[in-house]
């Protein structure tokens, strides 16, 4: 098996009193789409900056293609296509000037592919970057990130603030990148529906901590939404293994659990409840349950 494209171990980062990343470890397998999800300020951008070598790991280690991005920026950055959340492009350049300029940094720049993308995104290469719409700006940034056919496409909140048409271009770019043998995508997002569409592996980050990290299929298979009906009114929520979230009162309670269905069924029965509804929660529901759970656990602690 090929080694992980990204390998992060025990990464902790503090800005003053605030802990931006708290002992984060994760690996990204080659040829997959990894989605890092979390609220604004959860630590997603800080994490990505470590992958790019823009921040140095003070505690823990960061390896991209087996290399330290701070020590070997050329070896790492030359193989990454990056789109930042701010999409910071030089306003005074025209698109074709930006392409010529960027090309110089990447020996693998694919001119034909760049032209194809210009056409796909319906961009006019003579246009000044300053005059581009928000969506066109994102498309231009994406074009620059893609045209050297990077081994790792790294996108920080690529869809944020964009209309559905441009969002689809971005998802299309992610899909085409992994469809090309061996290439890998890492992106952060708070749009859970998009993440659910295109990712293989999901990492959920909350307040700097990685609260869940697993293949999407595994996450979907192990989480259940159950509605329990009791024979007698209950004063407290039911106690079930792996319970993340619970709402309800009296006779009927709806819970979100991470666990095996037969174990949950047996536990419910033992407490005098019957399951009146079984469903599969969406990634968004799982995320919200996980985040709320960490909040309540912390309050108890």
């Amino acid at each position, binding site marked *: 098996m090929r080694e992980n494209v990204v390998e992060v171990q025990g990464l902790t980062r503090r800005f003053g009193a605030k802990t931006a990343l708290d002992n984060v470890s994760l690996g990204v397998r080659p*040829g*997959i*789409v990894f989605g890092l999800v979390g609220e604004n300020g959860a630590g997603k951008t800080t994490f990505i900056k470590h992958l790019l070598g823009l921040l140095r790991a003070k505690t823990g280690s960061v390896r991209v293609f087996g290399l330290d991005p701070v020590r070997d920026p050329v070896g790492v950055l030359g193989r990454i296509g990056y789109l930042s959340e701010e999409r910071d492009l030089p306003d005074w350049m025209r698109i074709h000037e930006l392409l010529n300029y960027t090309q110089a940094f990447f020996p693998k720049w694919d001119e034909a592919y760049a032209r194809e993308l210009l056409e796909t995104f319906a961009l006019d290469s003579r246009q000044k970057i300053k005059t581009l719409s928000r969506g066109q700006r994102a498309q231009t940034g994406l074009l620059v990130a893609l045209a050297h056919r990077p081994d790792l496409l790294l996108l920080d909140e690529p869809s944020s603030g964009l209309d559905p048409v441009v969002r*689809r271009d971005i*998802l*299309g770019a992610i*899909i*085409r990148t*992994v*469809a090309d043998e061996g290439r890998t995508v890492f992106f952060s997002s708070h749009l859970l*529906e998009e993440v*659910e*569409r*295109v*990712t*293989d592996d999901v990492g959920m980050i909350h307040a700097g901590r990685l609260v869940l990290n697993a293949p*999407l*299929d595994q996450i*979907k*298979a192990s989480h259940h*939404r159950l509605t329990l009906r009791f024979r007698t009114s209950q004063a407290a929520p039911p106690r079930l293994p792996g319970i993340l979230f619970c709402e309800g009162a009296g006779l009927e309670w709806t819970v979100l659990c991470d666990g095996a269905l037969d174990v949950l069924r047996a536990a419910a029965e033992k407490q005098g409840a019957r399951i009146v*509804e079984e*469903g*599969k*929660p*969406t*990634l968004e529901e799982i995320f919200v349950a996980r985040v709320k759970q960490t909040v309540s656990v912390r309050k108890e602690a």
Partner: protein
Amino acid sequence: MQIRISPQDGVPIYLQIINQVNYLVASRRLLPGEQLPPVRKLAETLVVNPNTVARAYRELETAGVLTTRRGAGVFVSEAGRPPLPQRERKRILSERIDILLSEARQMGVELEEIVELLRQREKAIDKSNMGRRSEP
């Protein structure tokens, strides 16, 4: 090939693809020997991960619904869809029936009414399939 993906459904996307291809083959909207779009193309159309499409195709192939011909693409098996084991058939239908029953209950529709409606729908579907088959 008409496939609709709903990430909000809760059902994993590869299973949604499998279920719908099965349905299309069973309802003969995909015929034995008919070619399916390549993984990459279907992934782009549905806006889903190509690895997910590949997994769905792989499992459909294991189940004997699809066959891959090297260099040519993915096709519906000539043998057609092998019958599902009894238990599996029951499981798939029970899931759907449970949804139907709970919706009917909420709307206050009696079981007899549902059975009658099922009969009506079967007739309607038969009729439209007859129409389809008589097309050239």
